[in-house]
């Protein structure tokens, strides 16, 4: 193989010649199979490679390739849609057998996974608005765990003083472009072209040449070398039969450059598992990663934890005050105030926090920033807005319950000594309502701490986000999440203890009663 590697042209001929062997190999593979279905994962959020149709079925280039490859190998294809951010962890933990989701083959990934021969070749392309000819100081969007962020950081000459924002999918990147969150983005050449054709991104155009060429392969666990060999043979068969070209034309819209594909095969041929390579047990490969990553991931996790802590505490304190105001509003004698307060609680409690985060980030912050003409509210501001609004509604509802649970006689007694309504609320009713609502308010706080894990969706690097990223980088699925879970548990335990202590302090009258009996 070494000799062939030096001359990709010759290699491709040899590989094509290998196709003759194919029917026998595949037939042999199929007869060995105990389990007749093959599970292939993709994000479903990467047009035109994988997306879902109106019926929720996975469609696209990757989806068609996955189905055809599996059939060619003699399996029933089972396509699994999973978030791109967790796609490697899912493979490592055996949730599926292969990733057929447009994953570029990189040195870093090759250390964690096996890859098939490239099944298409594309490249990294900068996209920006027409007329924007200088990237200095730009805000650049990329998807989580894409190779682009790394490339941008390694090439400060091409990307001077830029800041990188990561998003869950290309669709969100386009939304971010449309709402001025970012000035440019780096994406796959084909994907960018697809969005331009869709017209979804307005006046966004490719800018400059390809940054680099990317060969995209199908990934498997390191213990699946036999499976990867089957994939390679099936891929060859699809190219030979013309099925590959048919699928490519259907989704990409152009004829595939097979010469380019074969030369990429030559480049990656040395990664093809040899037939005599013994299958390594998974534990053997994961053990060293486990030990290595602990020391390196802790500082990262700690930084995420600081943001989580900041978000939780500022929101908790603010939402206690605003929650009290809205809670009082619900028992106001002004029908308008009452309606506004109840309406607020109804809407906020009736919508998911993730939706509120996106609305604060993509809609509200954008609107305010455009009105003011500068970026007044960034991702952190939007996260605070959404978290405070959400927690306010829950605290208000909790307090409303506490207020209405206070005996009517307390109002009568306080009114009879001439206290005004506001004074009765402040000095007589609210302290009792607060005392009774304290366990539920503590519960709201616990929910809040855990809900901060959602702000990763709007580019903030909090604890869960860090844990997920460490999982991609190390391929180790358990330890980062275990650390994150431990940190949340510690934080929530502290909060719970604090609330309990406060409860005891406020209920000292009951305790005193217990002692006197």
């Amino acid at each position: 193989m070494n000799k062939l590697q030096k001359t990709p042209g010759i290699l491709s001929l040899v590989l094509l010649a290998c196709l003759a062997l194919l029917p026998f190999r595949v037939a042999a593979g199929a007869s060995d199979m105990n389990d007749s279905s093959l599970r292939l994962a993709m994000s479903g959020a990467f047009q035109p490679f994988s997306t879902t149709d109106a019926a929720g079925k996975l469609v696209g280039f990757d989806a068609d390739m996955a189905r055809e490859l599996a059939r060619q190998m003699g399996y029933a294809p089972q396509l699994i849609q999973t978030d791109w951010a967790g796609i490697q962890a899912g493979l490592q933990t055996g949730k599926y057998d292969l990733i057929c989701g447009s994953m570029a083959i990189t040195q870093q990934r090759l250390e964690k996974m096996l890859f098939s021969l490239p099944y298409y070749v594309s490249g990294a392309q900068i996209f920006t608005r027409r007329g924007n000819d200088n990237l200095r100081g730009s805000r650049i969007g990329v998807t989580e765990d894409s190779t682009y962020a790394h490339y941008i950081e390694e090439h400060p000459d091409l990307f001077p003083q830029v800041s990188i924002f990561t998003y869950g999918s290309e669709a969100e990147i386009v939304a971010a472009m449309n709402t001025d969150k970012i000035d440019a983005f780096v994406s796959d050449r084909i994907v960018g072209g697809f969005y331009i054709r869709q017209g979804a991104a307005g006046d966004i155009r490719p800018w400059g040449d390809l940054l680099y060429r990317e060969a995209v392969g199908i990934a498997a666990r390191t213990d699946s070398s036999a499976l990867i060999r089957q994939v390679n043979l099936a891929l060859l068969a699809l190219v030979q039969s013309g099925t590959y070209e048919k699928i490519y034309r259907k989704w990409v819209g152009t004829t595939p450059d097979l010469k380019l594909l074969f030369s990429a095969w030559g480049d990656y041929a040395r990664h093809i598992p040899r037939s005599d390579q013994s299958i390594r047990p998974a534990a053997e490969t994961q053990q060293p990663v486990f030990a290595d990553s602990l020391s390196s991931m802790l500082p990262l996790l700690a930084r995420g934890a600081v943001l989580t802590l900041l978000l939780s505490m500022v929101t908790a304190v603010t939402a206690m005050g605003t929650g009290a105001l809205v809670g009082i509003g619900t028992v106001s004698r002004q029908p308008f105030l009452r309606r506004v307060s109840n309406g607020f609680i109804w809407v906020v409690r009736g919508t998911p926090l993730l939706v509120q985060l996106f609305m604060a980030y993509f809609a509200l912050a954008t609107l305010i920033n455009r009105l003011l003409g500068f970026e007044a509210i960034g991702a952190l501001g939007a996260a605070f807005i959404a978290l405070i609004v959400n927690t306010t509604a829950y605290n208000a509802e909790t307090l409303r319950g506490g207020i209405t649970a206070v005996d009517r006689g307390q109002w009568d007694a306080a009114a009879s000594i001439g206290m005004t309504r506001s004074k009765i609320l402040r000095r007589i009713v609210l302290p009792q309502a607060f005392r009774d609502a304290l366990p539920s308010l503590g519960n709201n706080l616990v929910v809040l701490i855990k809900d901060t894990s959602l702000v990763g969706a709007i580019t903030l690097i909090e604890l869960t986000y860090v844990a997920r990223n460490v999982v991609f980088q190390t391929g180790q699925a358990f330890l980062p999440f275990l650390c994150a879970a431990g940190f949340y548990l510690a934080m929530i335990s502290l909060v719970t203890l604090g609330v309990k202590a406060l409860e005891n302090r406020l209920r000292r009258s009951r305790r005193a009663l217990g002692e006197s009996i």
Partner: protein
Amino acid sequence: MSDRPRVEIETRALRKSFGPLTVLDGVDFKVRRHQVHALFGPSGSGKSTFLRCLNLLEYPDSGEIFWKGEPVDYRNMRPAELSRHRRKMGMVFQHFHLFPHRKVLDNIIEGPVQVLGTPTRKAREQGMQLLQQVGLEEKAMAWPEQLSGGQKQRVAIARALAMNPEVLLLDEVTSALDVEMISGINELLTGLAAAGMTMVVVTHDLDFARRVADCLCFFDEGRIVESGPPEKVLDRPESPRLIDFLSSFQASEPGTGKMNKGGLYGRPMVKKHK
């Protein structure tokens, strides 16, 4: 009228309904200075609601209220005026309604400090004196939940007195108490009456009413059916409703003059004697 004590509160044709239920059906009433007025009658006859209308815990639907001859414009009252009106009258409730999150002394000084603006130190001194008066000075730092029912009611009375009210409104203040607690509270109220406190008392305890009250008013179906001095109202009742009421009451507990609560709860018992 000049020889009679001055009128503190007067109501004319007071009416109040809760939905379809008419609770007060035109009540004319005068509260005279230094006198004790006992309101009695079957449950649901409107006496408690009437009491709550006097200090505007409930707003009448129609009718007039006068304070020392001045009309009280309860329909357009600002919060400050309402507060001023209410604090002229102290009120004590059947179920005490002490503030559970405040210690005994703090319950008492809440009104003086928060409403009258009395300095805390002075309010505390006065509060201690009141606690002494009701016999509970050693409980000043206790929590309400640590007190017995009778003790709670004493604190509630002290809390009402702390505002220096001109009239005391008492709404069945012994009804929720154990029998052995009642005489203590009654003694306390008798002492207040002797000291010249103007009182309006809703009660089921006719013995107490006979001993202490200057004027008894019999309420039935939202009206004052009969009123006058105890010996007239209790011994020589004129209206058939009152005669029925008194006979049912005496039949249920003969000789004691102590009301049987069961017999008074609801009208079926009264109607039986019609």
